[in-house]
């Protein structure tokens, strides 16, 4: 394979095709390590917390949360937007970067896509369980019914959400699975046990590696990438419309769609970095996920973080310029009201902290990137909290102004979604190749 002289190789360590297969199949074929067990156990415990708190919510009622007459959405929708946002990097990396022929994406796209799917699972929990009567959630689907002439309200952004999220989830799932097929076939072919042979064989769907198969595979991948690309923009645009189409000062803002999309990519890359830095360290994948990768991603973070920061400032300037007292108050209240600590946390984490990535050292030092990636995650959670809670807690009539603090059930559910996320991720890391072997093999220089 031709290698440009001015570019660093995308995979280091002089890996051969065989090395790639061996390295990446090793965790699947060996017994799980003790660190895997430890992580998985913690994640599973958190998952139980999720199940327990959700069951309690459904059994007792939404009153077990601390949302109230003015702040009717609290941690629930904050977490929803947070997780949906995280789910954006996967598709961006696999679809848009594929279309732009960014080959460095190849060693990270698999796990990024997996992360997307798991994040969307986590996200979906919140709009579902924030309903007072979750058992009737299917009423939000436009299905023909026997209840008379009942139909859904196509004016409602919540309904748009239903379509946007379900489309996104199904396309991402198909895209991810399609990419997995050749690698699953590899695992199948190396299988030593009957069960392994059967299951991987089942999911490989008879992949035979013929030129024709590869040709079709490439075409389908490209088509799916084409379909996914607008979704990267549409999902968070629609999520942002939950707020933008309302009348609440602080929500009713036309800047929301681009601002939310940039924020989503920002937070998505933050989470990808967090996960990959752990995986890279634990699984010794330094040669596949090189500092080149890290640097590229930190650049995306720097860019999107700055866009988000610009949006914060723009919002504030527009509010000041609007001459509309409610809008002005909403933003003044964010900065200096009782939730000012949340606002300034957000400002620091999202606008200030990522600016360190102007420095090459910061971009290439894994432990430092790891810290910043956590900071970004925290910042983006607070961004949603600030938007949702500080807008609602003081809106038009001061008589209804309230404070809102989450209850243990809400905290438990949020913690629990991390349990779900990491349980899925640990299972993924154990049973599926976390790096796309077939694609990586196209970008290494095997001497053979």
């Amino acid at each position: 394979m031709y290698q440009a002289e001015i570019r660093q190789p995308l995979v280091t360590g002089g890996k051969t095709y065989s090395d790639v297969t061996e390295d990446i199949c090793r965790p699947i074929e060996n017994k799980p390590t003790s660190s895997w067990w430890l992580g998985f156990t913690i994640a599973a415990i958190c998952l139980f917390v999720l199940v327990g708190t959700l069951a309690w919510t459904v059994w007792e009622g939404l009153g077990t949360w601390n949302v109230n007459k003015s702040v009717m959405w609290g941690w629930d929708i904050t977490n929803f937007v947070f997780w949906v946002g995280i789910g954006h990097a996967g598709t961006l990396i696999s679809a848009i970067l594929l279309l732009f022929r960014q080959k460095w994406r190849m060693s990270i796209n698999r796990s990024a896509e997996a992360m997307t799917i798991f994040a969307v699972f986590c996200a979906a929990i919140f709009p579902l369980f924030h309903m007072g009567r979750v058992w009737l959630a299917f009423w939000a689907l436009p299905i023909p019914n026997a209840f008379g002439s009942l139909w859904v309200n196509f004016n409602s952004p919540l309904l748009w959400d239903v379509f946007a999220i379900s489309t996104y989830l199904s396309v991402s799932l198909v895209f991810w699975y399609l990419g997995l097929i050749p690698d699953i076939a590899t695992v199948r072919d190396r299988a030593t046990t009957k069960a392994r042979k059967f299951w991987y064989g089942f999911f490989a769907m008879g992949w035979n590696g013929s030129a024709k198969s590869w040709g079709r595979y490439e075409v389908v991948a490209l088509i799916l990438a084409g379909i996914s690309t607008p979704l990267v923009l549409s999902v968070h645009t629609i999520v942002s419309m939950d707020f933008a189409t309302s009348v609440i000062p602080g929500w009713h803002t036309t800047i929301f769609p681009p601002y939310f999309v940039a924020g989503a990519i920002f937070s998505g890359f933050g989470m990808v970095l967090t996960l990959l830095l752990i995986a890279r360290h634990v699984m010794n994948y330094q040669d596949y996920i090189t500092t080149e990768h890290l640097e590229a991603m930190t650049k995306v973070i720097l860019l999107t973080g700055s866009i988000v920061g610009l949006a914060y400032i723009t919002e504030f300037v527009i509010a000041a310029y609007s001459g509309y007292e409610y809008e002005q108050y909403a933003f003044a209240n964010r900065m200096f009201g009782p939730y000012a600590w949340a606002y300034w946390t957000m400002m620091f984490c999202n606008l200030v902290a990522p600016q360190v990535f102007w420095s090459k050292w910061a971009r290439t030092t894994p432990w430092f990137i790891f810290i910043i990636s956590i900071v970004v995650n925290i910042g983006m959670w607070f961004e949603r909290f600030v938007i949702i809670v500080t807008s609602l807690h003081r809106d038009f009539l001061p008589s209804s102004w309230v404070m809102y603090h989450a209850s243990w059930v809400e905290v438990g559910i949020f913690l629990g979604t991390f349990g779900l996320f990491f349980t899925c991720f640990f299972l993924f890391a154990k049973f599926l190749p976390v790096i796309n072997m077939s694609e990586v093999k196209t970008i290494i220089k095997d001497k053979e």
Partner: protein
Amino acid sequence: MNSSNKYWKGIDELQESQDFVTSNVNEFAEGLPLEKIFSNDDSTRANRRDFLKYFGFSLGAVTLAACNKTPVQNAIPYIVKPDNVTPGVPLYYASSSISNGEGFPLLVKVREGRPIKFEPNKEATYFGGGLDGLAHSSILSLYDTNRLRGPMKAGDKSPQKWADFDKEVVTALNNVGGKSIAIVTPTNTSLVLDQAIADFKTKYANTETVAYEPISYSGITRANQKAFGKAVIPAYDFSKAEVIVSFGADFLGTWISPMKFQSDYAKNRVPKDGKMSKHYQFESLMSLTGANADSRLPMKMSKVGNYLEALYAALNGNKPKIELAGNAIQQAANDLLNAKGRSLVVCGSNDENDQMLVNSINIMLGNYGSAIDITNHYKGQSADENEFNAFVSKAKSGAYGAVIFVGCNPLYSSASALEAVAKIPTRITTAITMDETATQSTHVATDLHPLESWDIKQPYAGRYIFAQPTISPVFEGRASVSSLLAWAGGDIADKDGFTHQYNYTKNVFASQIGGDFNAAVEKGFIENVLALTVPSFSGNANESIAAISSRKAADNELILYQKVGVRDGSFGNTPWVHEMPDPVSKVTWDNYLSVSMPDAKANKWEDGDIMKVTANTVTVEIPMLIQPGQAKGTYGIALGYGRELPETVKNDLKDLGVNVYPMAGTSANYVIAGAKIEKVGSGHEFAQTQTHYSIEGRDIVREASLNAYKNDKKAGNSFHKPQPISLWSSHDYSKGHHWGMSIDLNSCTGCSACIVSCSIENNVPIVGRDEIRRRREMHWLRIDRYYSFEVPESKDLEMSIVNGGDQSLQAGDYITQEKVMEEYSSVTNSSDYYQNVKVIHQPMLCQHCDNAPCETVCPVLATTHSSEGLNQMTYNRCIGTKYCGNNCPYKVRRFNWFRYNENEKFDYHFANDLGKMVINPDVTVRSRGVMEKCSFCVQRVQSAKLTAKRENRKMETDEFTVACAQTCPSNAIVFGDMNDPNSEISKLYKDERAYHVIEEIGTRPSIKYLTKIRNKQESTNQKAH
């Protein structure tokens, strides 16, 4: 024509072929496939395997189906339908309010034999045609699970038979051994009870009667005794007063008869032809009345005599010795002199000398015979505590052999009585629950609830009110009247198919009033009053002035007051009086030490600190609350709390608040000088429905001064924000009805009666203290209360841009913004200005917007718009996303966070079968997880429309109204059809004062508010933005 036509089924039949004839003999012409069925061919039969499959499935299905236990519910139809009772059609009976012991006319709405709501009797115009929150809440006492089931003796676990019980009581009464029998009643206005006691006395000549009231007005009665020779409380008519000066009398909230006073007061508060009454209020605590005054000035209640003296002097043309800010006393005097004979001065002090000065002033102003009527005087609440004190000391000395408490509960409110009464060997109580007096009794003769009884009351001389039963007795109670007569040896058996109580009441009517009893009961009241006269005055103001000047001043004073909801505490066991927020502090479910801001700042006390208060040798620990508007150096605690309810009460009514009646002592002194107050703890969280008290300078409430209004009827309301362009096409209401509402901020006093009326009409659940702390009260209608503070001295404030930028405040301006207040406090290093407060009340409910933000965001169309302008809520369809609640700019939507009915965690009346009887069958009880809100009483709208349709006529103008508007004592809320040009609402909608709240967001509400006009010398302070 003979039926000769013949039809045949086939050609065979026509030709009657041989085959056809033979085969037609058989029932089945083609034969049955019997052979095939009974053959061994498996293809046509269920084989063993199939059988087992079907069997297994059926068994499984039946088992699963059987797991779901279907609750047995009985709907028992009438076998013989009672006359006039049609299921689904309410009946209205004229009767008397049960929370006003002296009698207050109202209608009882009865559905299928169950009283479910009180509605005002609009025909009784003297009483004003409104009801308060307490009156509405008191209906729950009928369905209280803690009601006694029958007569009880001390120590009994279950009720006895009446015959056995009576035998014992009679033996006890006959064995008093030369000692006296005392009958303790509230101030008795019942002609029936009067007669019964008289009859009782003929048997037991050694009987004394004692009147007892928890709240004493003896200052007034004693002063009137001296001045006019009559120990009575006069009848006040605030509608005849153009200038009202009140010294600490909370006549709109708690003083004497606020329901009537509110209606009278409101008549002069709407500026028609540029005229409205002027109201001065000088007071210490921030009362509901003070909140409505044109000029409210803080003063120390202990100095009220001096201020009265000052006013007296000013009226006589002398210079007042002491003055309030802005020469308010002199101003009030000038205004009073300009309105001689058309004014009224009242005082909340319970001191004879203070009241004598008030009498002198009113005589001087010629108010007797117009606003004050001592001829047809008030008869309720006039018991003098000295009478009861005499009873107590006699009881202590062992003078009584027996005591009968009839319908009163003195052992709760009178600390001195407890020990004394214990010395009386036989203590009989007629009560409906095990209250504090009943628990101390030897015999409890379970009474009938007032809604189960007949009665004739005389609240004012010459005005009679008739109470009639609206439900058959729920338990084995017996009317106290019948009990007294039974013990006196009378025959109390039913006669001619009527109960003894009915026959007895009818006889009393015939002998004392006369006329058509049925007509009187149907109408509910009879008025037979004398012409107003000016009484001859024999009081001496100078004596009183001398007595007042000898009073000693103290640094601080503790004022025991009543709350608008709870009042004297008699109905403290009905939860709505506690769930209804206090109109001023917005606190529910607690009493507290009310502290002024300067005192709190000086002592570094904060809301929720636990204070130890010692007054009159009584010490209590109670949380404190800072009350803007309260005078420095004054403290307040509400009476009526700390009731000891039966052990079966497990909800928030249990151990509720602190009983401070003992502080008032035997002399009923409600202003205690020199209370000792110290902080002993902190961290109490109040359940408040509103915590932010400033309006932040927002254009939500519009107001103007009377002068500005005289010049321009649009004053304060001249600027209307441009309506944004709407994406939606507007609704077409040209056909049929178009419902709308107007709320007059001028006549609304904030009394909160509408909240309880609405809640009972619409089955709004009670959620309790904890849930209100989480800000989850369910009220469909709330009353927003905002303060603004007068700036005492001009100051320039340097403020950051986000907080509004630099501001220059001139003395006399009003600050409405939280940050500005804080800044002003720190610049002037004082918080004294928190005493000078202006208050506004604004009822807030679903605005039924034409462009409703809630409607567009619901994903399942659970909230939609009707063709008559209502914003409707379909509970069944709601999945509970709460998006509508978030997007409501008025924040009036309420979510069912829990299942509030049949839930032991919400153990109020919705949780038990008896309490559920008060549920309005026309309104759905909402399930958990759905949103709810004001429906403009859609059940009333529909019922009125259907009635008109059934009677084949057009609906009449203002034929019905909604629950809040109906009960409003000041008639501030008007509901009606805007398509009817004659309706009141169509006229009010065109009023120059009418405006929509936050109109600039383009919601186009169906409720208009009318600008508040204050009778004060100042220009509009609300600038248009």
